[in-house]
C-alpha cells in the first residue's frame, strides 16, 4: 500500500491543490482519498486503471470539500514565498521577461487561481486533469465519471472562460 501511496501522491496532490487551492485542505483530501480507496478496494473492478479510479475518489472528495466551504477564502500565498518575499522570488524565477516566468509572481498565481475559481468544480476538475496532469480524454472520462463528449465540452468551455479572464496576463 505504501508503494501505491508514494507512487501517485505527487500527481494527486497537484490535481487536488489545483482544485482546492489550500495546502492543508489538499493534504487532507489526498489522505482521505487513499484511506477511502484502501477501505473500498473491493469496489475497484479493474475496469479503469488504479490511478484514474483513485483520481475519481480525489476529485469527488475535493468537490465535496469545496461545496462545504464554498465561501471560504483561505489561500495563504505567503506560504509559497521564500523568506525574501516577492522580490526575491521574482528574481529567482526561471527565465526572463516572458509571460510564463512572470506567472511565478504570487499576484499572477493568485489571478490564475481566481480565474479557475470562477469555474464550476466539474469544469475545474477537467481542465486541471488535462493541463496539470496531462490525462487523455478517456482517462479524464474515467476519473470524473462522465462521457467523452462531456469531457470535451467542459474542456472547451473552461479554456474559453479562463482565456477570457486571463486575457490581461496572456496579452496579444
Amino acid at each position: 500500500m505504501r508503494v501505491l501511496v508514494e507512487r501517485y501522491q505527487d500527481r494527486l496532490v497537484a490535481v487536488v491543490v489545483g482544485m482546492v487551492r489550500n495546502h492543508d485542505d489538499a493534504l487532507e483530501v489526498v489522505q482521505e482519498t487513499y484511506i477511502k480507496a484502501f477501505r473500498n478496494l473491493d469496489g475497484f473492478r479493474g475496469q479503469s486503471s488504479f490511478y484514474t479510479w483513485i483520481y475519481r475518489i480525489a476529485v469527488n472528495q475535493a468537490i465535496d470539500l469545496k461545496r462545504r466551504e464554498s465561501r471560504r477564502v483561505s489561500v495563504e500565498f505567503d506560504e509559497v514565498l521564500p523568506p525574501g518575499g516577492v522580490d526575491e522570488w521574482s528574481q529567482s524565477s526561471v527565465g526572463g521577461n516572458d509571460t510564463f516566468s512572470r506567472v511565478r509572481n504570487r499576484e499572477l498565481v493568485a489571478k490564475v487561481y481566481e480565474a479557475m475559481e470562477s469555474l464550476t468544480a466539474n469544469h475545474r476538475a477537467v481542465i486541471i486533469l488535462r493541463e496539470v496532469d496531462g490525462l487523455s480524454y478517456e482517462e479524464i472520462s474515467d476519473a470524473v465519471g462522465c462521457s467523452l463528449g462531456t469531457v470535451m465540452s467542459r474542456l472547451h468551455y473552461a479554456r474559453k472562460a479562463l482565456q477570457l479572464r486571463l486575457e490581461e496576463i496572456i496579452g496579444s
Partner: protein
Amino acid sequence: MKSGAPVNCHDFEDRVHAFLDDELPDTELAAMRGHLGDCPRCEKIVTGFQKTGALISTAVTEMVTAVDVSGIWQAVESGLDAGVIAAELATPSASGREHPAQGHPGSSRWDSPRWDSPRWDSVRRVLDSIATRVSPGNLGWAGAAASVTALAMLMLLSAGQDGQVGDTGRNVTVAQAAGLKSARLDSLSGAPGYTVSSWVQPRTKARVIWVDNGVNEFASRDARY
C-alpha cells in the same frame, strides 16, 4: 470534417481542443497542421489556448512546491489503523482475555506473546501514535481527528489532566473530557462497557493509554504501570 480533407477556419475551431490535446487521428492532425501553417488567425487561437494551459500548469506547480507530502503515508496508515481499532474494539474476543490481567497500575508491561500477535499490531500502532502525539490540553489535535469515533474518544480522554478520575456516559464532551483521567464509556464504536484511561508516567513522562472492556485489554506500547 472529412478525414484528410482540407480544413477551413470553421473546421479548425471545431477541433482545436482535440488538436491541442493530441486526440485527433493522424490524417486529421496533418490537415489541421496544414491549415495552421497558412492561417495566422487560427495560429493566434492556438497560441492563446496554449498560453492559458501553461499559466494554469505553472501556477498549480508553484503551489504544489510548497506542499510537504512526506507525511502522507503515515497519515494514511494511521487513518486505516483507526478503522481497524474501531472494528477490533467492537468485536471483543469470545475466547477470553488476550492478555494476562496485568493492565492495572502496578503491573509490568504488555509483553505477552498474544499481545504481540499480528492481529493486534494495527491496534497497538494507533495507541502508540496517540500516546506520542497527544499532549495534555491539546484538544485542537483531538478535534481534527474526530471523524473516527473511537479514536476521537481516546484522544479526548487522553487529553485529560492527571490525578483526576471520573465517570461519564457516551456523551463525553470536550469540557468533561478535559477533567478526566479515566472514563467509563457506555459505547465505543457500538460495543458496550469500555473503560478508557490515560496516564503520564512519572519517570519517562510518556503518555499511556489503556482500554479495557472486561474481556480484552489494549495498551500503548511499552506501557508500564
